[in-house]
């Protein structure tokens, strides 16, 4: 029962199904299961580590300079982007060319930037969430939510791209309608 409650909570706060954040990335990566898993994992790293930068920014940036938060988030994600690429290069130079694409795709996308803004907005509405632990947990949950949505899409990917689907609706349009139906179910759960 506890697991079911947690699963429902995770679905209800899912950044793709309820906020449509990172949908394009999900669709692009969905063509290949390996791509999808690696992209989802890289996004989780970005949302989790990025949430630390978001916490430091929100904690220290005066209210009157709040318009600059996007600039600071972008700079933080940019620094993380370079660190992850450098780490990947030093860990395995042989696989660097193959795996760097996941970092390129994941860095500046709506899933990552949207998560940072969502966490920040929730913390500004509820001061009990203005602590590092809450930020990291929310960032990690957002990444897990992306993985969950990826699994849900993967389950139907073959059918949605089947020749039995009319040519005009095959692929992206069918995937959008499918996600819409799943999103409707999640809306009913909330």
């Amino acid at each position, binding site marked *: 029962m506890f697991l079911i409650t947690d699963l429902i909570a995770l679905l209800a706060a899912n950044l793709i*199904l*309820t*906020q*449509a*954040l*990172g*949908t*394009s990335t999900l*669709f692009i990566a969905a*063509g290949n299961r390996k791509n999808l898993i690696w992209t989802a994992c890289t996004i989780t790293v970005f949302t989790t580590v990025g949430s630390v930068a978001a916490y430091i920014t929100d904690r220290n940036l005066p209210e009157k300079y709040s*318009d*600059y*938060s*996007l*600039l600071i988030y*972008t*700079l933080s*994600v*940019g620094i993380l*982007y*370079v660190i992850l*690429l450098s780490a990947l290069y030093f860990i395995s130079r042989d696989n660097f060319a193959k795996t760097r694409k996941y970092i*390129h795709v994941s*860095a*500046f*996308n*709506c899933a990552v*930037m*949207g998560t940072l*803004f*969502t966490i920040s*907005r929730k913390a500004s509405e509820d001061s009990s969430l203005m602590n590092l632990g809450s930020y990291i947990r929310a960032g990690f949950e957002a990444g897990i939510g992306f993985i969950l949505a990826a699994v849900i899409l993967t389950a139907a*990917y*073959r*059918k949605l*791209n*089947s*020749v*039995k689907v*009319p*040519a*005009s*609706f*095959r*692929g*992206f*349009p*069918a*995937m*959008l*309608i499918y*996600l*819409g*139906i799943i*999103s*409707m179910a999640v*809306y009913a759960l909330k």
Partner: protein
Amino acid sequence: MNNRKTSVFDGILGDNMVLSSLMVISPVIICGDTLKNAEALSYAFTSVTILSMLIASFVPKKLPYTVKIIIYAMISSLVYIPVKVATQEFYRGAIDRIGIYFPLLAVNSLIVLQSEAKFFRMPRAKMFFSLFFYVVGFDIVMLLTGLIRELLAYGTINGRVADVDLPVSGLSQPFGGFIFLGLMCGLYRWIRSLVSREKKEMRSEPYVSDN
């Protein structure tokens, strides 16, 4: 001349960034439920994208790819600040309604991904011409989505009551946005295949057999 004409219609019909490539769809799905939101988003997207790309086109090409992407994102984040101030003047209350999707427009995939993959490979004049029509393509979809969803979900047009007796309130929700955009995508592909007779190209798109 022919090339130029093709590039003009590419952004609007042939390769619409929302309906064909599914770029920048989050604001369309979530915030495109009223015409007022759609107007504010179109204005912000047009301003941020064109100004950012204009400035970013002067970034040296010899820099490493990652550095260029970070610089482009930083430029658009800077351009976002005056655009936000102007939006607060022109569209009062719009930023509160749009919420987190407003800053997200500044790091859209047209700026951070397509700039390097497509636009900055073109001669500068052609690039701006092409970019302009890609942005117009987004604006058309955004406004059309806002108009139809507002009419069907709330029975109003731009906040004024319209004589419509079939409100479909679900269209104002995210799931309504997903389904509506999916239907628009399908309709767009059907029209595109009729106009350009590209049925052969559509069949060649990747699919997986059920067998």
